[in-house]
């Protein structure tokens, strides 16, 4: 996990230094630092970050309000956030979890516990991203199957109608016309499917999926 980048948000330069150095040494992480909630938001605008460790109480912005702003752009799977709190901040912990924190650790930070929690959330995020990618692939495959099935049949018919001598046959011209209009209709429906947020699937052959249009 050495390529993973963790953003440590804490107004205490010493506490940041401690986490940056210990996580780099024990976990091999690259750590970025932010001294405030606003600084954290600035960094997120220009840097790629895999996970955030954020102190609950900081000047300027309370950690939980920064957390809520981050959640406007990143969901808990895209960017896990672990709050760092003191044991006395039970209310803050509840508030932070409700505002979208994935987890929390307490100060003084036990490095082994912190690394374990970080690894868990990075793994969950990676698995979730992989699942999303698999779903996208499934949708893409289904779409290709659908195109192939729905367009191929009328297209074959249309091409057959264009055979030598057949285009003068009125019945063949009618079939050709129907087939081409069928193709046009399918293309329109497929375009409508791509505008939908949810894709409904049917089964084509065996395990092969088909997009319902």
């Amino acid at each position: 996990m050495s390529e993973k980048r963790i953003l440590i948000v804490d107004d205490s330069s010493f506490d940041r230094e401690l986490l940056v150095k210990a996580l780099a040494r024990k976990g091999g992480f690259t750590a970025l630092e932010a001294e405030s909630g606003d600084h954290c938001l600035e960094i997120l605008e220009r840097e790629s970050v895999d996970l955030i460790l954020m102190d609950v109480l900081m000047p300027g912005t309370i950690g939980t309000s920064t957390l809520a702003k981050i959640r406007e752009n990143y969901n808990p799977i895209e960017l896990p956030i672990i709050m760092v709190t003191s044991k006395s901040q039970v209310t803050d912990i509840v508030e932070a979890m409700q505002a979208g924190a994935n987890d929390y650790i307490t100060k003084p930070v036990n490095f082994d516990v912190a690394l374990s929690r970080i690894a868990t959330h990075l793994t969950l995020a990676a698995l979730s991203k992989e699942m999303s990618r698999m779903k996208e692939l499934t949708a893409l495959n289904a779409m290709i199957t659908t195109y192939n099935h729905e367009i191929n049949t009328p297209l074959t018919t249309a091409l057959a109608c264009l055979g030598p001598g057949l285009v003068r046959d009125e019945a063949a011209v009618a079939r050709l016309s129907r087939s081409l209009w069928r193709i046009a209709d399918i293309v329109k429906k497929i375009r409508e499917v791509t505008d939908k947020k949810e894709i409904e699937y049917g089964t084509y052959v065996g395990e092969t999926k088909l997009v319902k249009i």
Partner: protein
Amino acid sequence: MKFSPNIRPDKIPSFDRGTFMANFHGMEDLATELAQSFLNNLPTYVADIEAAFDSRSFRLLEIASHRLKGSVSNFHAESAREKAYRIETLSIESQIDLAAIELTIAELKVELKRLESDLRVEIETKWAL
């Protein structure tokens, strides 16, 4: 807190060395580096608390004492942590007790002196004692 008659409060260790070093197992050099860094930051921590109190900026006092509480807790310096936490809670009460805050700041500074002294010994001996 009650103490055994045979043990003077100032002889009680200022921090839990065993728990602190367990966290830094195999990273004694980093423990030394961070202890030195903490000592470098210590005057600023105290100055922030005193400035906030002198200006009666209790929100800043809450933040400064909270920050120090978090930092000393890394060393498991329970007594200093408890004093910082008391200042933090006193600074958010509806009726501010200035005398209690002033007294606790004085007690905190005593604890920080002890912690500073103990950490300097550890840094010099590289945690060998």
